[in-house]
């Protein structure tokens, strides 16, 4: 992605609720046209941060800027942002068309033009012809679409989405994820999504800010976040990661030598330690899919360690194995894609596991 101009800038934003420090110095830039996600467990401040963009929440110190303008004295109804609420907040006493056209009440356009705008917005979200329905008679997914159309009809610079998919069932959620991505590409508006679902964030976002306790722990694109998390906490929050205790034994021009918990001496690149490493005790992490169980006749491309299968969890397309590698004091999780004709291993099977030092991540 080419570097786009900034749309939202947080400058050392702090927020206190009484003694509670909800936002602890947020500094970040969200670029124009970006699909940006705020990801974190509940209570991490992600929704509060979103609401400071919308103007529902004031800030205690620092600055929030939208499109280069300070928002300190701009109330929510004057900001170039619109929001899709977690509960959708569909006005139950109005029809679908009245809901979608609600923001146009103060628009100087003629009634006929407004009706056309509402129809276009409904068509955009796939609800053409639903205008006269009562809003409360809609299904969850349809409400979601009405909320989207209602927020997008004002052509905001930023669309804010507060856990918009959390109320939908799994299938509907996955469908809406794809539709939201398409919609975002179509309208080109900056989307800021709040979610606690790491998978959702990975699927949808251009960049993700992972938040813990009112701070941004890491801000990166999904791939970097997944492959090179900068702390054990981020690594643990996003996907599954195996951790083994390690010792840093040497550092020299861009390389780090480590003794990785029973796997022996390994040389890795400095980039594989995204967090600060200061020698001595450390942890290595590796994702389940970076390990491969070797079958008869297969050989490792890189390193190979024998082990014993301790647990098997069958998922249909995938199987998760917990394997105790020889010399390692705890089982590691390995995910294998199931291939036709290759049997799922039984508990207790002796096997060989291939791994690569390049896939390791080093943490403090």
């Amino acid at each position, binding site marked *: 992605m080419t570097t786009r101009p900034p749309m939202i800038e947080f400058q050392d934003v702090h927020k206190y609720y009484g003694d509670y420090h909800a936002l602890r110095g947020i500094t970040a830039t969200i670029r124009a046209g970006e699909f940006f996600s705020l990801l974190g467990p509940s209570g991490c401040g992600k929704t509060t941060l979103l609401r400071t963009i919308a103007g529902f929440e004031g800030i205690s110190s620092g600055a929030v800027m939208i499109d280069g303008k300070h928002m300190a004295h701009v109330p*929510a109804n004057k900001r170039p942002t619109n*929001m899709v609420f977690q509960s959708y*907040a569909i006005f*139950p006493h109005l029809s679908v068309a009245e809901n979608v056209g*609600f923001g146009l009440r103060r628009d100087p356009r003629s009634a006929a033009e407004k009706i056309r705008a509402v129809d276009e917005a409904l068509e955009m979200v796939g609800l053409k012809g639903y205008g006269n329905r009562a809003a409360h*008679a809609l299904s969850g997914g349809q409400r979601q679409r009405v909320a989207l159309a209602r927020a997008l009809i004002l052509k905001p610079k930023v669309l804010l989405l507060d856990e918009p998919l959390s109320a939908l069932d799994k299938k509907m959620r996955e469908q809406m994820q794809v539709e939201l991505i398409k919609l975002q590409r179509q309208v080109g508006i900056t989307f800021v999504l709040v979610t606690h679902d790491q998978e959702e964030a990975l699927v949808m976002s251009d960049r993700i800010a992972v938040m813990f306790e009112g701070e941004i722990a890491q801000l990166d694109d999904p791939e970097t976040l997944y492959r090179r998390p900068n702390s054990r906490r981020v690594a643990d929050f996003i996907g599954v990661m195996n951790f083994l205790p390690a010792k840093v034994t040497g550092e020299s021009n861009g390389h780090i030598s480590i003794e990785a918990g029973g796997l022996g001496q390994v040389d890795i690149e400095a980039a594989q330690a995204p967090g600060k490493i200061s020698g001595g005790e450390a942890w290595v992490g590796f994702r389940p899919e970076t390990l491969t169980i070797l079958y008869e006749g297969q050989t490792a491309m890189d390193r190979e360690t024998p082990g014993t299968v301790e647990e098997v969890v069958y998922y249909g397309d995938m199987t998760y194995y917990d394997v105790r590698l020889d010399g390692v004091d705890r089982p590691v999780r390995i995910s294998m894609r199931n291939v036709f004709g290759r049997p799922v291993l039984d508990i207790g099977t002796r096997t060989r596991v291939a791994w690569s030092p390049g896939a390791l991540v080093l943490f403090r």
Partner: protein
Amino acid sequence: MKFPALRAYALFYLLFLYAPILLLPIFAFNDGTIIAFPLKDFTTKWFEQMFTTPALAQAVKNSLIIAVSSSILATTLGIFAARASTRFAFPGKAGIVGLIMLPLVLPEIIVAVSLLVVLLGLGIKLTTFTVILGHVLICTPYAIAILNTAFSSLDRSLEEAAYDLGETKWSTFRLITLPLVMPGIISSVLISFTISLDEFIIAFFLAGSEPTLPTYIFSQLRFPKQIPMIMALGTVLVLMSVILLTIAEYFRRRGIAKTGGTDTGGFL
């Protein structure tokens, strides 16, 4: 019904509750001044007498003025208080709300006497206006109790959504909040109206020389020949109450249907 005893109990209970009310129309149409069986001839003269008694007409007028004013005033105050107590946190909130709700449990006679002392002390003449003040005081807690439910079941993000879409705080209240709590408001007005209409103690103490319907009825009970007319009046009042409550229930159900909620009871 598995328990015949419970069934008998329920029947007896209903009889005890409603039989006296059923006596009203029976004696209202009975051609005799003594309230006793056996019944005499059928007559409608008590109803005619009702409409030709100026003092009764004046009492009805007073009562209606008081009931309409105090139900609207109490509901208006209730809207402010309910909104404040469901939306905002402020110091001393529990204490303030508690004080407002206190008249609900305070013996009415105490409220009436203390109001009388204060009003006389201030040199305010006792009129229907002073009764309105007293009735607002006792109706407001009911109004708040009803409106609190209406306001607290309102999703806060609805108001935020309207504000976010460019409306002002006031137009948001008018376009979103008010229509959605309207069933609660109608309920509150009707309940307050009913409470005020049949309130006796405060009206008795504060009405001065302008009797309300209950104080008028009480004053006429001393005259045996007036009793059949009171029966006729009672019949009309029962009929009116039933109609009023039916209307209230209709609005409440329509409100729920309009917003797609599920009916969770109500007064009827």
